[in-house]
């Protein structure tokens, strides 16, 4: 009896020690994650909530915010034609830039998935534009490339084309800026590349035995198996495109004729040129809701076009 008691006591002690150790591990885990949680609370959650509050106020960053209820929202929807213009421009930009960027990223990923000697070098080279990205320096470079007397028109002149007013024409400028974002295809491309390499080779072998052509294999094997990655890339790039700012700000400053007056520019102008922080907060919440809605639609429809190997889709 006493022997079994002592065994039981030992076992209980061991369990208690384990629980304690587990608790300790939890603390350690929490400590590890604490910088992120504190960062989230201070730099994301607090500004997030305060901007919601400011969106119901008249706030010029200097005097005390004055609560004005829904006035900012009312004004945005009823008395601000620039809001609709920026929304329209942003909508076109998203619809244009995101699909082209994804298609281009997939195309390059297909090329870079080839089993060639030194392919890693090419993968690095093709990723470089994304590192340089949409920085101010690249935007300035873009301006010099695409201005009326820039390099692109010079090259076209050898083909007896142009000169095209890439950035000075209200009909073309937005598309030129779209190219800048397509150029930063690297992160989507890397994900596609990883996805392509995960596709089992025997599927292609089976396809080849059945006599499927390369394009058929691409559309019937590669694309369906990549749809989860397409979904991820689509959502991420769409969110980024809705918030696009640097290129339009540095290169065209929203012009010509507000043809590149993206939503983020409108928001920035209200906040930092006109000091209307309450109004800008309301604008940012509207953008947030739009992005949420579009994301929800993409996820909702994804059931019908995203294929998961475990049969979920």
């Amino acid at each position, binding site marked *: 009896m006493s022997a079994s008691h002592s065994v039981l006591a030992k076992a209980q002690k061991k369990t208690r020690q384990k629980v304690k150790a587990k608790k*300790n591990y939890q603390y*350690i885990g929490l*400590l*590890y994650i*604490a*910088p992120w949680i*504190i*960062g989230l609370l*201070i730099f994301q959650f607090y500004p997030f909530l305060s901007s919601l509050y400011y969106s119901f106020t*008249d706030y*010029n*960053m*200097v*005097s005390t915010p004055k609560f004005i209820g829904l006035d900012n929202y009312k004004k945005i929807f009823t008395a601000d034609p620039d809001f609709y213009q920026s929304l329209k421009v942003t909508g076109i930009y998203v619809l244009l830039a995101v699909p082209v960027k994804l298609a281009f990223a997939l195309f390059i990923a297909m090329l870079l998935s080839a089993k060639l000697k030194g392919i890693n070098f090419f993968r690095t080279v093709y990723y470089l534009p994304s590192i340089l990205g949409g920085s101010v320096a690249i935007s300035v470079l873009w*301006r010099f490339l695409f*201005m*009326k*007397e820039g390099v692109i028109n010079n090259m076209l002149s050898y083909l007896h084309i142009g000169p095209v*007013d890439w*950035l*000075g*024409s*209200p009909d073309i400028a937005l598309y030129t800026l779209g190219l800048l974002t397509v150029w930063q295809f690297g992160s989507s491309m890397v994900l596609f590349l990883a996805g392509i390499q995960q596709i089992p080779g025997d599927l292609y072998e089976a396809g080849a035995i059945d006599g499927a052509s390369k394009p058929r294999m691409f559309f019937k094997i590669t694309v369906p198996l990549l749809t989860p990655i397409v979904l991820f890339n689509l959502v991420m790039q769409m969110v980024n495109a809705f918030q696009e700012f640097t290129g339009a700000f*540095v*290169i*065209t*400053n929203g*012009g*010509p*004729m*507000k043809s590149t007056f993206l939503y983020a520019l409108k928001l*920035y102008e209200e906040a*930092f*040129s*006109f*000091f209307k922080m309450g109004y800008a907060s309301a604008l940012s919440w509207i953008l947030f809701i739009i992005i949420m809605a579009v994301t929800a639609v993409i996820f909702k429809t994804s059931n019908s076009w995203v294929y998961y190997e475990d049969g979920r889709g």
Partner: protein
Amino acid sequence: MMKRNKVGALFIAVALILSMLSGCSSGNGDSANQGNTSEGKQASADGKVTLRFSWWGGEDRHAATLAAIEAYKQVAPNVTIEAEYQGFDGYEQKIKTQLSGGTSADIIQLDLPWLQELTSKGDFFIDLKEHSDFDASGFDQNFLSNFGVYGDKLVAVPTGVNAYCMIINKTLADKLGIPTDAQWDWETIYEAGKKLHAEDSSKYLLLADHAALRQDIVTMLKQRTGSQWVNEDYTVGFSKEDAVASFDWLHRAMEAGVYQPIGESDLFFGKIDQNPKWINQEIPLAPSMSSTLLSLKNVLPENVEIVTGLPVIAKDAKDTGVLVRPSQLFAISNKSKHQNEAVKFLNWFMNDPEAAAILGDVRSVPPVKSSQEAAVAAGKIDAAITNAVELGLSHAGIVDNSVANNSEVQKVLEDVIQKVSYGKATPEQAADELIASLTSKLNEIKARQ
């Protein structure tokens, strides 16, 4: 082993948190703001003071200002000046954000319109009149009170006298047969521009981004009415007829190629000196502020001669519309922990002959007489800038009120100007739109006051 790992993990996690928190504090305070924190406390102990000084400008201004800061070390060895300088792009936004967040530099270079807005919205700057270390007696008192005094407080001092003028590439103008000593009116300049572009389609007479076009239209309106284009009581200061006539001229000028197309010129908004047409000497005249002369000159070969003239004045002008204003202004933040030291530095920077000789005309002609003389004696003032300022002062038009300098009001005019420039609105449509939009915007601003 396990225990050691746990201790190690704990140590790393604590270090991460501490480094993040210290990151937060320095991030909020801006690295250069140390003068207000730990260093500030040190200052009282060992007498060392660190001041931050922010300005915008081109390479010449940066180099001269840095040299002056270096020279100040001899005057006040205990004071370290941290320079925060950049181009014009984004400076306004940075300063406004810093001011509202209480993290601005001690000495701040400001533009006149922002100062007018800032002083109406808050109390950001010290009253220099309260500091006996600052000697304002050398300034033209009228100029000082027109632009530096707000609500009885001397919150800022002009950095230089700046006049709107015609900056002329004389070498090119001579080659093209364009007179450089002409007093242009709107018709003569239109004819000259039309002729030049008709003869050589790659050339345009006038260099202008949308801000310069706005200035031209405002000048035209003031010359027609003899008064402000928007009144102090938030009403429109011109009639539809005035607006139609002004827009009609602009429309014709754009069609005839008097100006470079705005789609091309606006890519260099705020930095017209980078416009390839100017650099390649395909545009001879730039209507601009005299303070931009140096940057416009420095992009051209050394043998190119630059002269200045009066801007366009209508034949029957009721007011010349010639703008004379401070190049920029210097103010001292009331959040500065070392206000006295900042005042002493500003006083030296504005009044000392040595400083004047170093700075020369990088902020146009110095506003203090003795400094002007010192800079001239040192051969540091371009005769073309002096000429522009003298012409401006002798033909100065009415001083713009703060409503006219409001950024939202100016934006309304710029939007309509773009429509006319791109041929998307007739002068009549543009005039109607301008009056309607301005009236609405002015009412909105008035309601917010």
